[in-house]
């Protein structure tokens, strides 16, 4: 138990400083039925604390949900107020506590904990990671099930959004 606490402390010390996000894009896509309407939205990474220790990528990535933009103000407000409840849960946070990086390969299967809408859930996804000196270039794609995060299925004037939402994160981050 002491060992675990000590490890957590070391991790927290290591990633206490925010990394510099050079560029980032967080995209989401949901399908609305019955018209197979594609709802595309975008956001950016917020406070990012990442560090490579050995062959592990550790730290956290935040996304400010109030910054999400799907191109229609009314739709954004509807999504944030009624479904994501951003007043209560303004951020989505991805915790990378022990993401192993494979040597000699840029494609990694990572395990992380996603905190969204006040719910934490472990997710696994494939991420392309390139490290050039201190700059980390990352591209990840994964899907989440809204019900896993206790988010109601969005519905508006006869259009109902599918249960699964696709997410894509691309970022260039300068590590400490």
């Amino acid at each position: 138990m002491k060992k675990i606490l000590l490890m957590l402390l070391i991790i927290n010390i290591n990633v206490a400083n925010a990394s510099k996000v050079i560029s980032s894009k967080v995209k989401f896509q949901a399908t609305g039925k019955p018209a197979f309407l594609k709802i595309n939205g975008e956001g950016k990474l917020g406070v990012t604390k990442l560090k490579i220790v050995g062959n592990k990528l550790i730290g956290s990535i935040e996304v400010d949900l109030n910054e999400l933009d799907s191109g229609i103000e009314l739709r954004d407000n509807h999504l944030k107020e009624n479904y994501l409840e951003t007043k209560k849960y303004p951020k989505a946070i991805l915790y990378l506590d022990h993401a192993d990086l494979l040597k000699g390969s840029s494609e990694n299967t990572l395990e992380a904990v996603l905190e969204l809408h006040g719910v934490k859930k472990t997710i696994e996804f494939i991420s392309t990671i390139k490290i050039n000196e201190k700059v980390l270039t990352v591209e990840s794609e994964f899907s989440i099930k809204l019900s896993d995060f206790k988010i109601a299925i969005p519905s508006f004037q006869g259009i109902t959004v599918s249960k699964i939402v696709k997410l894509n994160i691309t970022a260039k981050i300068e590590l400490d």
Partner: protein
Amino acid sequence: MKTLITIFLLVLSANTLSYVENVTKGYANCMSCHISPNGGGILTDYGRVLSSAMMSTWKVRPGFENPYYGLFKNTQSLKLGGQLRTIQVHAENNQVKIAKKFVMQNNLEFAYKIKNVNIVGTIGRQEGPKTTKRKGEFLSERHYLLWETSEDTRVRIGKFKQHFGINTPDHTRFVKQSLGFGSNSETYNFEVSKYYDWGEINISQSVGDFFAHKADDLQKRNLVFNFTHYGNGSSRFGTSLLLGRDSLNKRRVYGVNAVSGLSKNTYFLSELNYERKIELNSSDISTDALFGVHTLGYKAFKGGTGYFVFEHSQNDLSKNESLILSPGVGVQLLPIPHVEVQLEYQRRSYQVAKNNPEHRSFMIFHLYH
């Protein structure tokens, strides 16, 4: 009474067009906004909200997007709509100068839903320039039953325009008119549409217009296939095939089309159709034709779009003199929900009179209630 009805129809009218460029905003097909699977005509509740939230410069006041600018509120089963479209046209070349102003379209539309079946119909009158046959007479452009057999399948029977290529408002595109898909080209059809996450398939068979005046009825019968692949949420690419015949000819039309968002505010629409027509009296005589329309648009601000358009047609590929080229520029303004103003200029040159191009401009004022 006749005067009263006329005044009523002038104030309230029907049939809405599709704004195909919305494909670039994730609206891969027309069903989000229109009850008709192929677009045009009466709006869904979602379509009404979208016209205010995404398409118009100003919102006016809450509820203004409802039927008749907020005077009526749709219910779950009853939707109302209407359309009034007027045009002012100016065309001139070295010899001729024409200026006309007339109502293009004026009617009311309703959709009533019982379980999974929509009953849709328009009532209105025949509009057009002074020379239009039966101008002022009663006209129901569309009336059909639309059965939502499942979430992603639609079966339709009745009078409506057969879907072919990109369903743009065809009224001003002469290349669509040349293919038989211009104004008042609605026929009685049977249609099945199936939608998938990746695209759609649409098949329809026309059986003609039962109520057409004998003198006008060319007994057109078309079997049409449309296959469309949706892109990544901002584009669609399609092919179309028409196998048809009328009292004079049989024909095949092969078409390809694309709608694509080139950037956040730039879109491209393109449709190219090749037609082979064979005379029924003599199977030796056939004519090959090519028609195309291409538009590059830029949304400068919410409700304000500028565009370049290029139409071309050659109704006999063996005769170079049948070539018509018509580049142009235009502006589309949607200042408030359900009000549209469109201005366009085209320089139309005919191969037979190369040195005498036609300068055409028009302004459309359009209320879709």
